[in-house]
C-alpha cells in the first residue's frame, strides 16, 4: 500500500524541468505556500468573521466583498509602517525574536502530510521532530520579550515560557499514547494505519475506548501551547497590554502574528493526524455507496486534513470568544495537578489495552 501511494509522489519528484527538480519543489512548497496563504488570510479573516457573528456584528465588510481582502490590506499596511527598534532594546534579541518564532512554528510543517503525496519530509521520527521543533518558539518568545526591554513584554514572555514548557509535558504524554497505539513516530505511517473502508471507525479515537482521554488532554494542552483563550495569559490584553509583542511594529508584528496562526494550524493538524486519521476520509463504505473510496485521493487527502484542521481551529475560536481567562497559578494548577496525572493514567491504561486486550 505504501508503495502504491508513493508512486504518485515518486513520479512527481522525478520531474525535472531545465535540470531543476521542480517536482520536489512542488511537493515541498505546496503545503507551505498553502499554509502561508491560509495563515495570512483565512485564519485571521475567519477569526474576525466568526467572532463577529458570535457577537452580533458583521465583522470586516467594506474591504473587498464581505471584507475578504481585509487581511491582505492589513499585511500591506504593516509592510509600510515605520520599523521601530527602541533605543533601550537589546537590538540583536529584539530583531531575532520574531524570526526564531516564525522559523520554529513553520519548520514543523515539513513533516506534516497533506495527503498521500504531499509531505515535505517523511521522517521516521516525524512526530518527535514536530513536538521538538515547536518548542523552539519558546526561545523566540523569550528573546522577543527580553529584548524589548519593556516590563509588560517581559511579563508576557516569562508567562509564556512557563506556560509552554509546562504544557509540553501533558501534551507530549498524550501524543505518546497515540504513538503507542500506532507503534510508529512517522507522521505518514499514522495516516496509513488509520486507513480503511469503514472510514472513521479506523481512526485511533474510535479504536480504543480510552483514546478520548489523551485526545482531550492534548486538545487542552494545545490551547495553552498556542496561547489561546482561556490560556491566553501571555498576551492577556487587559493585563499585559499586548504581551511579549508590545513593542513590535510593522512587519515584525505581522511575522509574530503569522507564526501564531501557523502554530494554531500545526497543533490542529497534529491532533487530527494522531487521533482522527489525518488525510483519511471519515466517510465509510456502506454497501454499494463506496463513500470512502470516492473521497480518497491526493486532493481529497489535502481537503480532509485541512477541514479537520479548520474544525479544531473553529473550536479554538469558539472557546476564545466565550470563556474568560484563567489566572497564572490556576493555569499551572491545571497543568501539573490535573492534566499531567491524567495523562499518565491514560498512558498506563492505553498500554494495558494495547498489550492485553487488543
Amino acid at each position, binding site marked *: 500500500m505504501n508503495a502504491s501511494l508513493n508512486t504518485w509522489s515518486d513520479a512527481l519528484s522525478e520531474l525535472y524541468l531545465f535540470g531543476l527538480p521542480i517536482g520536489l519543489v512542488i511537493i515541498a512548497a505546496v503545503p507551505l505556500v498553502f499554509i502561508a496563504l491560509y495563515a495570512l488570510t483565512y485564519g485571521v479573516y475567519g477569526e474576525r468573521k466568526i*467572532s463577529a457573528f*458570535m*457577537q*452580533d*456584528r458583521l465583522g470586516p465588510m467594506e474591504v473587498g466583498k464581505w471584507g475578504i481582502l481585509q487581511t491582505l490590506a492589513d499585511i500591506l499596511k504593516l509592510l509600510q509602517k515605520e520599523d521601530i527598534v527602541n533605543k533601550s532594546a537589546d537590538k540583536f534579541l529584539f530583531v531575532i525574536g520574531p524570526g526564531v518564532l516564525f522559523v520554529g512554528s513553520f519548520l514543523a510543517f515539513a513533516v506534516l502530510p497533506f495527503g498521500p503525496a504531499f509531505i515535505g519530509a517523511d521522517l521516521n521520527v516525524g512526530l518527535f521532530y514536530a513536538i521538538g521543533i515547536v518548542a523552539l518558539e519558546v526561545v523566540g518568545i523569550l528573546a522577543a520579550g527580553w529584548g524589548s526591554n519593556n*516590563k509588560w513584554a517581559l*511579563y508576557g514572555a516569562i*508567562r509564556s515560557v512557563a506556560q509552554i514548557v509546562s504544557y509540553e509535558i501533558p501534551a507530549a504524554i498524550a501524543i505518546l499514547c497515540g504513538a503507542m497505539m500506532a507503534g510508529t513516530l512517522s507522521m505518514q505511517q499514522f495516516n496509513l494505519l488509520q486507513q480503511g473502508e469503514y472510514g472513521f471507525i479506523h481512526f485511533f479515537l474510535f479504536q480504543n475506548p480510552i483514546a478520548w482521554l489523551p485526545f482531550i488532554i492534548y486538545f487542552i494542552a494545545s490551547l495553552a501551547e498556542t496561547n489561546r*483563550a*482561556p490560556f*491566553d*495569559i501571555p498576551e*492577556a*490584553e*487587559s*493585563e499585559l*497590554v499586548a504581551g511579549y509583542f508590545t513593542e513590535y511594529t510593522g512587519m515584525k508584528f505581522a511575522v509574530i502574528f503569522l507564526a501564531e496562526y501557523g502554530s494554531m494550524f500545526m497543533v490542529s493538524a497534529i491532533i487530527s493526524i494522531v487521533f482522527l486519521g489525518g488525510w483519511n476520509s471519515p466517510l465509510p463504505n456502506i454497501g454499494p455507496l463506496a463513500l470512502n473510496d470516492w473521497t480518497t485521493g491526493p486532493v481529497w487527502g489535502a481537503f480532509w486534513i485541512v477541514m479537520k484542521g479548520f474544525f479544531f481551529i473553529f473550536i479554538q475560536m469558539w472557546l476564545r*470568544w*466565550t*470563556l*474568560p*481567562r*484563567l*489566572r*497564572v*497559578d*490556576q493555569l499551572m*494548577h491545571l497543568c501539573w495537578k490535573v492534566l499531567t496525572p491524567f495523562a499518565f493514567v491514560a498512558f498506563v491504561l492505553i498500554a494495558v489495552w494495547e498489550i492485553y486486550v487488543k
Partner: protein
Amino acid sequence: MQELEKAEYSSVRVTPKGEDRVIIEKDLSSEEMILNMGPQHPSTHGVLRLECKTDGEVVIEAEPYLGYLHRCFEKHAEMVDYPGVVPFVDRMDYLASMNNDFAFCIAVEKLLDIEIPRRVEFIRVIVSELNRIASHLVAIGTYAIDLGAFTPFLFCFRDREHILNLLEWTSGARMLYNYILIGGVAYDLPQGFKKRTLEFVKYFRPKALELQKLLTENEIFVKRTKGIGMMPAEVAINYGWSGPMLRGSGVDWDLRKEDAYSIYPELDFKVCVPDGKSSDIGDSLSRHLVRAMEMEQSLDIVEQCLEMMPEEEGFDPKAAIPKRIRPKAGEVYGRAENPRGELGFYIQSDGKSTKPLRCKARSSCFVNLSAMKELSLGQLIPDLVAIIGSIDIVLGEVDR
C-alpha cells in the same frame, strides 16, 4: 495621647483570604520591580495610574495616582449659576448622567425648599433607573473584558444601546442628557414611551439571564473573582464605601431606602445583598452579583413606576422650576444613590448670588477607590485587574 494613637491604629485592616493565595517565599532572593500601570492601559478604565511594586507576579503594593481627568468641576460650579451646573454634573459620571443630575437637583431643591410635581418625580425615577441599568451594563461588560471574556462586553453594549435610544427619545441626547433640571425635567415623556419601555423590559429580562449564564455561571469567571479583593463590612464602612460595593460586603444599605427620597418609599423593592451562597461576602464576585441583581431590580422599579405614574394631558414638567434660582443662605448636603454608590453634593449658598459659594461633589468612585491600596496588598497582577474592575470606577467622577 498615647491611648489616642493606639485607638486609631486599632482601626481595622483587610486580611486577604482565600485558600490558594500565593505566599512569597522568604528565602528566595528576589528583586522588587516598579511597574507602571496606566494612565493608558486597557484595564484601568480610563486614565487611572497605578504604580505597582511587584515581586514577580505578586503586587506588593499598588499606589493609585489620580487627576489625569481632573476637569475642575468644583471651580466651574462656583463660576456658573445653579442651572448651569447641571451640564457639568452630567459630565462627572458620564455613564450615569441622569443619576448625577438627580442627586444634584435633590441637593439644590432641598436648599430651595420647593415642591416637585408628582409626575416629574416618576419621570425622574424612571429615567434614572433606566440609566442605572445602562451603567451597570457597562460595568459588567468591562469587568468581563478585564477577565478576558470579550463577548459579554459586546452583548452589554448591544443591550445598552436600546436604553440609550429610549433616553435619547426622551431627552434628545445619547449620553449626557441635561434632562433633570432643578425643580423639574426638561420635557415630558414622549407619546408611547410606556409601551416601548415595557417592550424593552420584556426584551431585556432574558438577555440579563444570558449574561448571567456567560459570567456568573461560568466556572472560570467564578474562580477568578471568588475570594478576591475581600473587604469586611466594618472596614468597608470605615473606608466610606457605598452602593454596590458596600452591599457586596453584606451591609444592608441603600440610600433609596435609607433616605427615602423622591417616590422610592412608595415602591416595592428590596435592597440587594448577596446571600453568600455562591460567593464569599465581601469579594469581587459579590460586588458583581449585586450589580447583576440591581439590574433586574431596576427593571421591576421601572415597571412599577410606569404602572403608577399619573397620566396628565398637556403636562408641563417645567412648571415648578423657579423663575430665578437663588437659594437663601445656608448649607446643605444632598445625596442620592448613584449606580456606583452615594453621590453627594455639599452646597453652600450665600443667599445673594445665583451661583453657589461652594459646591463639593462627594464622588462615590473616588471614595471607593481609596481602598485600592489596601485591597491590592499581596495580590497577583491578574487579581489586581479583577479588583479594579470590581470597583467599577469612572474616572470622570473620581477626578471630577
